[in-house]
């Protein structure tokens, strides 16, 4: 059974206006598909900013802390070796690798975090194969209205889509 309606708009402004109109009618479960991150659409959709940077920060700190611990553990504790008069636990010499590993782990978590929270790397997604949806990565702006929205009413939704200037309306088949 289908669970969402997709509608194509010509400009980001038309899409943003449609989102505001749907919001006015009490719709809350809206999303959009865009060829580039248009500010208008983001503002119209509202929603809170991404909290991914907090997770990246935590991973970065863990990477840096882990690197410092490992350096101390290896050359300060397990196999202390005095070279060039430097003591076994020599914080200044550990700074560079600590910093680099902090950056490395933060960077890895930024990339893979985007894949996880953005729900990428799936073999199929819900909107794939919708006729004409190719334009979402080219020059058109698509609105998604969830049928699970408590305010959802098929007739009203279609009327609103038509009034806000949707170029085409599609109901994707659910692939499960």
């Amino acid at each position: 059974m289908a669970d969402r309606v997709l509608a194509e708009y010509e400009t980001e402004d038309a899409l943003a206006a449609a989102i505001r109109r749907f919001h006015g009618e009490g719709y809350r479960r809206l999303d959009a598909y865009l060829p580039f991150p248009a500010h208008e659409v983001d503002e119209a959709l509202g929603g809170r900013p991404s909290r991914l940077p907090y997770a990246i920060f935590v991973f970065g700190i863990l990477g840096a802390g882990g690197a410092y611990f490992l350096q101390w553990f290896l050359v300060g504790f397990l196999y202390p070796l005095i070279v060039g008069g430097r003591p076994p636990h020599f914080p200044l010499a550990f700074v560079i690798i600590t910093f680099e590993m902090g950056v490395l782990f933060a960077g890895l978590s930024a990339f893979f975090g985007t894949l996880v929270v953005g729900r990428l790397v799936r073999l199929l997604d819900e909107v794939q194969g919708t006729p004409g949806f190719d334009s979402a990565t080219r020059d058109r702006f698509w609105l998604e209205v969830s049928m699970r929205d408590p305010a959802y009413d098929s007739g009203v939704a279609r009327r609103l889509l038509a009034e806000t200037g949707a170029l085409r309306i599609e109901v994707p088949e659910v692939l499960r």
Partner: protein
Amino acid sequence: MSDPILIGRPSDAALGEQLLGTTWRPGGRGWKLAFTISGALMLLLFALVTYTVVTGIGLWGNNIPAAWAFAIINFVWWIGIGHAGTFISAILYLFEQGWRTSINRLAEAMTLFAVMQAALFPALHLGRPWFAYWLFPYPSQMKVWPQVKSALPWDAAAVTTYFTISLLFWYLGMLPDLASLRDSAPTRRRRIIYGLFALGWNGKASTWRHYKAAYLVLAGLATPLVLSVHSVVSSDFAIGLVPGWHSTIFPPYFVGGAIFSGFAMVLTLVIPARAVFRLHNVITPRHLESCAKLMLVTGLVVAYGYIVEWFLAWYSGNAAELYQAWIARPTGPGRLAFYASMICNVLLPQVLWWGRARRSVWLLWPLSLLINVGMWSERFMIIVQSLLREYLPSMWATYTPTWVDLGILAGTLGTFTFLFLLFLRLVPIISVSEMREMTHDLVRGEHHG
């Protein structure tokens, strides 16, 4: 700033047609010729690396006292070139410089390919590269760990991190364009391949939000790397007591030189790519001028480094330092490198004070090549020349590279070009989604401002 960063206001579809189209329009005869030549040089590199690994690094010209020569020069030179890519993609992004949008993808690709060439050299220079994994702390029953108080593991950490972050930044930035290619490439095979690499990107607004946040954080993470990687590389020298190496100016001097040579390489690559793919509307004289200005500034940082080296040698009162800076370099066996770096890095870039020179491809392109030569010569001067004239005159020697040294350098140039030519044909060389965003912002600014 009189020149615009975008000529005309192309529609989203037109931008896609122009910028994605570079991947499916057939390459011309010139491209095939360049591909063949660079491919042949890449095979030469494979052959010479095999020869070196099988026989040993006695094939190279370096020996005591010049134990560091071509391999380290090439390493420093290549990794320095990479820095401008990261400077453009990360630092200019944080400073919201609109002109970076047209060239950041290309500059980041340059960074990746340059770092690949660079990473080859320390590994080969180990002499027994099959033990390169000893640099990493793997659980070993020998219970001997990397000596993290020495500079070599620092380099390993710095270069590994730099390559990984550059790759992730480049790839993350490319996901929307790969999805665009998946949806608009002309053949089914291309759609499947680009579709796999697009990782299921569908342009959902909520995904864009996380993407933008992650991209900004990655730019912030890459920014200190621009300054740190070459600082770490310069520490390899500065912690040594060799006259000509043992100097506190080294980190800023090396970072300035890195960005200087990197911008020269960006211009070397951008100018032909712009002409071949007719990108004059998106890579305008404004972009060339901005690169030229940064080249002028970083060139002055390099000149300042030279002056400080002379000054510190004099101020130290140390006979070996004085001899190195004031006599050995201008008159010693490697004096050609000294004069090449003075002419190419200090004298010639001064022409960029003149506005018309900064916008002329006919002047910028040869100048960028000369600066690359000059920066290679500078590393030769610092690394080899310093080792040839150390404290004891009985240790003084001369240095001659072998044909294997020259062949490996030529091979890395070929491999770099080969990878870059592949990049030009396989992925969009300009970020289409960022260009669309920028065009919409420009149009909006004109209507409301």
